[in-house]
């Protein structure tokens, strides 16, 4: 190949100015579904912290609470302690596999309807419409010189942006403390500095990412669309322009003049006008397409207007497109759900979920940990008997104080007392009260007669309530003879 490339008198622009997307209003089934998704997701986000859930006097009454200070995670009837973090890890794994499952079943549905970036962008785009009118009016206003009217409009619109951003950032912190209290403290200036910092940061990100960056986040910042390119295959449901039906594009007039030469696409560009990320779906699947289906709504309307069948742009798999292009009958979309990939993902997802539920159901609310004093390993007492010391951690995961019995299992002749129970009252077992929803650290002393040999034994912990939960922890009794 020769190299007759043109000398570059004017090098191309290295950086691209952000083209603001002014998407047109559209109505249709997908738009209505998007409304529904917005109401549901925002509703969950804003309302959840305010739901109350009675857990008795010793635990918070907030249904969903991430109590970082006390290291507890509450979700309705479930309470997670830090040592049970694998439940959270399991939920995150489920969320990940859930995304895979959704992707293999319905393509980029997360991107199109449920992603916070999508939802908040949608909200902000509706605000644009409310303040500045629909697409054409907004384009005109964008080009208009800065005057009093434009400044007023912009500042008022941006104030509403800011208000929504503030509410967004503000709702986030309510998940981490008692919502009504924090709400009050926040406005009376008594909340923790970290609360204000968090609200500040989230307000700023919502304002910038939702108000201005919008589709730039999806195209340049988010890794998910890029992962999607590896996740989608010819059996994935995507929003597709059926080019075999649409091409060659031409207006109605042209088509009337030359019947048979033109396809169904009248090149009205409505699909581009309504797109929230500004892509042209007719170029095929692309990273900017979040598969929200608004172009389907727009195209279906146009097709209805010009009296052509709907679905020139539609949810379809690439495989179906090939099949349809070859004259085959279209497959109903639900058939894409039933294939090995979705079954495997669902199986894995369901198995993890079932395992988590099972372990949640059988977990004990009583736990004992024993650590033996290493320095000194044993203690000779005045009467020649030998004493060992242990630190016991008694965990009470119930939201009420419970009496628990610590007992020696093994070690004949051994007697037990604790820091709060005097040696005079030494016995084979002792009862201590463990506060509600807490771990009590007890220093335990075990004494055995002078002729006792070093040996293993166990502490058993039994809750003295109707549950009679118990836990056992093996440890060792060290004597001078066996000590090096």
């Amino acid at each position, binding site marked *: 190949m020769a190299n007759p490339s043109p000398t570059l008198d004017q090098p191309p622009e290295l950086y691209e100015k952000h083209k603001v997307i002014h998407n047109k209003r559209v109505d249709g089934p997908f738009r209505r579904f998007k409304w529904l998704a917005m109401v549901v997701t925002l509703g969950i986000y804003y309302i959840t912290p305010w739901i109350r859930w009675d857990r008795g006097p010793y635990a918070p009454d907030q249904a969903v609470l991430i109590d970082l200070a006390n290291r507890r995670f509450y979700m309705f009837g479930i309470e997670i302690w830090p040592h049970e973090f694998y439940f959270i890890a399991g939920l995150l794994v489920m969320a990940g596999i859930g995304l895979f499952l959704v992707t293999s079943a319905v393509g980029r549905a997360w991107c199109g309807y449920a992603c916070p970036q999508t939802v908040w962008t949608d909200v902000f785009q509706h605000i644009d419409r409310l303040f500045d009118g629909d697409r054409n009016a907004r384009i005109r206003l964008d080009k208009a010189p800065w005057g009093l009217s434009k400044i007023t409009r912009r500042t008022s619109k941006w104030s509403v942006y800011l208000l929504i951003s503030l509410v967004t950032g503000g709702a986030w912190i309510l998940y981490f403390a008692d919502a009504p209290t924090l709400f009050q403290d926040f406005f009376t200036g008594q909340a923790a500095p970290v609360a204000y910092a968090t609200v500040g940061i989230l307000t700023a990100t919502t304002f910038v990412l939702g108000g201005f960056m919008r589709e730039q986040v999806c195209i340049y910042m988010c890794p998910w669309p890029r992962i999607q390119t590896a996740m989608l295959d010819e059996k994935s449901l995507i929003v597709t322009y059926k080019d075999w039906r649409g091409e060659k594009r031409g207006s109605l007039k042209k088509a009337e003049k030359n019947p048979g030469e033109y396809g169904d696409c009248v090149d009205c560009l409505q699909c581009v006008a309504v797109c929230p990320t500004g892509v042209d779906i007719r170029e095929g699947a692309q990273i900017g397409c979040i598969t929200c289906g608004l172009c389907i709504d727009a195209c279906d309307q146009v097709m209805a207007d010009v009296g052509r069948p709907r679905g020139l742009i539609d949810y379809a798999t690439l495989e179906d497109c090939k099949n349809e292009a070859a004259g085959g009958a279209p497959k109903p979309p639900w058939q894409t759900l039933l294939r090995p990939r979705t079954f495997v993902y669902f199986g894995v997802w369901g198995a993890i979920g079932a395992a988590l539920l099972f372990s949640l159901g059988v977990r004990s609310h009583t736990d004992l940990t024993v650590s033996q004093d290493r320095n000194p390993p044993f203690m000779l007492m005045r009467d020649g008997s030998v004493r060992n010391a242990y630190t016991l951690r008694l965990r009470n995961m119930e939201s009420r104080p419970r009496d628990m019995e610590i007992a020696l299992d093994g070690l004949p002749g051994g007697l037990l007392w604790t820091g709060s129970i005097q040696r005079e009252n030494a016995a084979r077992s002792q009862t201590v009260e463990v506060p509600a929803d807490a771990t009590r650290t*007890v220093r335990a002393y075990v004494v055995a007669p002078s002729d006792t040999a070093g040996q293993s034994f166990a502490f058993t912990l039994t809750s003295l309530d109707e549950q009679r939960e118990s836990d056992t922890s093996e440890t060792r009794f060290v004597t001078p003879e066996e000590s090096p």
Partner: protein
Amino acid sequence: MANDPHNETRVDQPTGTEFVGHEWDGIEELNTPLPRWWLWTFYATIVWAVVYVVLYPAWPLVNNATQGVLGWTSRGQLAEEISTADMARQGVRDQIAAIDIVKLPANPELMQRAVAGGAAAFKVNCVQCHGAGAAGSPGYPNLNDDDWIWGGDLEAIEFTLQHGIRWEGSAQTRFSLMPGFGEVFSDGQINALAGHVLSFTDRGQSSATGAELYDINCVACHQANGSGNRTFGAPALNDAIWLYGSSEAEVRQQIAVPNHGVMPGWKDRLDPVTIKMLAAYVHSLGGGETLPAPEVAVLEEGNGQP
């Protein structure tokens, strides 16, 4: 793919992207411009770096580095954090200072804090002799056991900590002096005496000589049955715990040429609150004795987080 020099906007068909015009051996560059805001974030990082260099220590020089106008140092930050922590503890220290040590056990939470503070102070001031686990070593008493030469309740421990034992720095120091009998007694007499002392714990043969020598010379302090006397700081000889060793040779040695260990008084070196906390810690080690007056049980358990 023939290039037409007059066609400025050729498009790569598969991607729909324009060519830039650069070509190397048939490989051409497509025009995929970076978003401009990306460039602004790059400029922003430069501005950030400049501000950072001005505010914080940054440029290494030969012997030091530029200081930065904020004057921040990691050492300074540490000092600040320590003083913040000290301030946070001040309330507890004030409470401990105000309370009489005999009333400490009645306040389990304060007692627990005192024990924790004492544990920290112990690691700094006491482990050199008494060991990290307070188990002592020959000549340095074990503080975990239930044998106390001068008393093992909170008040007695606090007093020992304040004034020491055989400590010249304090007029009130606890003082006892086991006389040396090496020059007075013959080896045989010392052997007999040692035998009698060891017979309290069934490990030696008591003899008439030994018993007589003990009755004349030792009973006044160590008592007839060898139970010792705390008023004089005379250790019990009838128990399993021996400060200077329990073998016959070690007992003979202690009769003939006794050791006299010294415990420093800490009154002039540590503040009263720290001494009080140390007393609480030592008392909590497992051998602490209840005060003569009936008191609420000593609590050192806490409702700690896991």
